[in-house]
């Protein structure tokens, strides 16, 4: 087992563990907003680690495509989180009893008052 294989093994297992914890979070968190946290961060890290671990076994010309996959994930995950988070808030799927401070609610309250 060479150093490269060891590196790949560590990356693959750590990445898969990260993905697994993300999925656990997806299952246990109370509302969409908290589940989004689990869906974005551990998944992104997990995928990037797995890509690293796999890229070691591939030729360079294919490994470059894997960089692209990781880049797409890192760029798109926050965008998706923002879109879904906003939609969830507007749809009332964020549980208000889990919130301590909510500046957005005050803002929306004000906007409604202004538009009427």
């Amino acid at each position, binding site marked *: *087992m060479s150093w490269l*294989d060891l590196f*790949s*093994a560590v990356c*693959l*297992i750590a*990445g*898969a*563990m990260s*993905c*697994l914890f*993300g*999925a*656990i979070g*997806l*299952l246990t968190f109370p*509302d*969409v907003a908290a*589940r*989004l946290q689990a*869906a974005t961060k551990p*998944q992104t890290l*997990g*995928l990037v680690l*797995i*890509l690293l*671990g*796999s*890229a*070691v*076994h*591939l*030729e360079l010309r*294919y*490994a470059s*495509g*894997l960089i*692209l*996959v990781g880049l*797409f*994930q890192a760029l*798109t995950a926050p*965008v*998706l989180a923002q*879109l*879904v988070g*906003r*939609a*969830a808030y*507007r*749809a009332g*799927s964020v549980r208000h009893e889990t919130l301590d401070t909510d500046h957005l609610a005050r803002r929306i309250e004000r906007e409604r008052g202004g538009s009427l």
Partner: protein
Amino acid sequence: MMGVVFAITFGLLCLAGLLSLVRLLLGGGTLDRIVALDVFITLIVAATCVGMGLNEDGSNVALVAAFALLAFIGSVSAARLVEKKESHR
């Protein structure tokens, strides 16, 4: 030795996929399902990449990249649709 590593990785990814499928079925709301489906697709992408590493053949990498992007576009359109529906109510 690497075979064991690949087997463990596949096992963990399958478990994660199973958990996200449970969330997909339980739901809680359309948005929960969208998030769960996105996670599931990410896991498929990850597993495909592991498979490429295992076979040492990456000729399908462009397909995987396209798949990852399509998943993003799908999730975004679905989320926007949900938002639009809610704001019309």
